[in-house]
């Protein structure tokens, strides 16, 4: 089946991925991306995250790490398989594995294995 990629991030990140062709806006003005600016509230981000992850037709949710930090607790709770949540770096913040919820789970698993 075909599924979408969602993106939640700063303007530049979202623009870039829209260029790559993942964007979609339906007739009800529902989009599969959210541009987060200093004016965006945490509630808006939470709602977008919950909406995207609940959608049946979404396979991947990309979220920049800075935005991810603002809803860190939601990400830590998130256990579902589909859609996958991927934390990506943004222009100003290089990738930090110590904050990535999924990476943390992976590293914990690795240390338990050893």
């Amino acid at each position: 089946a075909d599924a979408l990629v969602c993106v939640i991030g700063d303007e530049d990140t979202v623009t870039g991925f829209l260029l790559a062709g993942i964007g979609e806006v339906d007739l009800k003005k529902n989009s599969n991306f959210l541009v987060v600016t200093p004016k965006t509230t945490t509630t808006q981000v939470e709602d977008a995250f919950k909406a995207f992850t609940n959608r049946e037709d979404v396979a991947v949710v990309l979220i920049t790490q800075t935005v991810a930090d603002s809803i860190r607790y939601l990400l830590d709770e998130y256990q579902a398989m589909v859609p996958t949540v991927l934390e990506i770096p943004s222009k100003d913040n290089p990738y930090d594995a110590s904050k990535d919820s999924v990476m943390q789970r992976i590293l914990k698993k690795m240390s338990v294995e050893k």
Partner: protein
Amino acid sequence: MSGKVLPSRMTLTATKARLKGANTGHKLLKKKADALAVRIRMILKQIVDNKQLMGATLKEANFSLAGVYYAAGDDIKYQVLQNVGSSATSKVGFRVDNVAGVKIPVFDKIESENKAQDLTGLARGGQKLEQSRTSFTKALDNLIVIASLQTAFVALDEAQKITNRRVNALEYVVIPRLEDTVKYIATELDELEREEFVRLKKVQASKKKKIEEEQLKAQETAQAALASGKPAPQPAKSMLDKQKDPDDLFS
């Protein structure tokens, strides 16, 4: 399953069969758990490597985007955001793979036609835009790979937890219980056999005693008869014994 069963040979064979089944199941599940562990470790390594790569590809993509702003001005962003179509051109195909007995979702990118029907209003910086588009597409590809790996990992992790739980349940609960039951039935059967044996012996002994007593009595009467000169009393002839009767016309 509480308490013990009725100790009989039938239940013994039945329980032994169940024990054998449990042991085979345990062995197989252990193999599965090991296979899963190997898979997970492989995927773990891939995820870590790919995430590092992601850092690099995204940095490059963002860099090229900055180039676009430089060439075509800042309102490109606005144009792109406004020009999003009703159907995404890059989607992910969702397939289900079977790995070591676990169903894992796998993503691959699906590009549909009608790309770039937007952005026709941009005359300046077209080349830079195309470059940026390419680099972001590359980043997207990499990210889809990572997404696949991540889901695979989560699925395998879950499956491994369940399998390990089952292995432990068999090893520490089911199999010891069955072994106990087998031992119990065996001991009970042994004891019943012993009781049977003892009873038999007792009956034999009492029979023997009875025979001895009768023999003794017969001897005594015989001796007494001899001493008094009378003939030993013969056992009375039974009328039921078949005798030849000459009056029988038909016999």
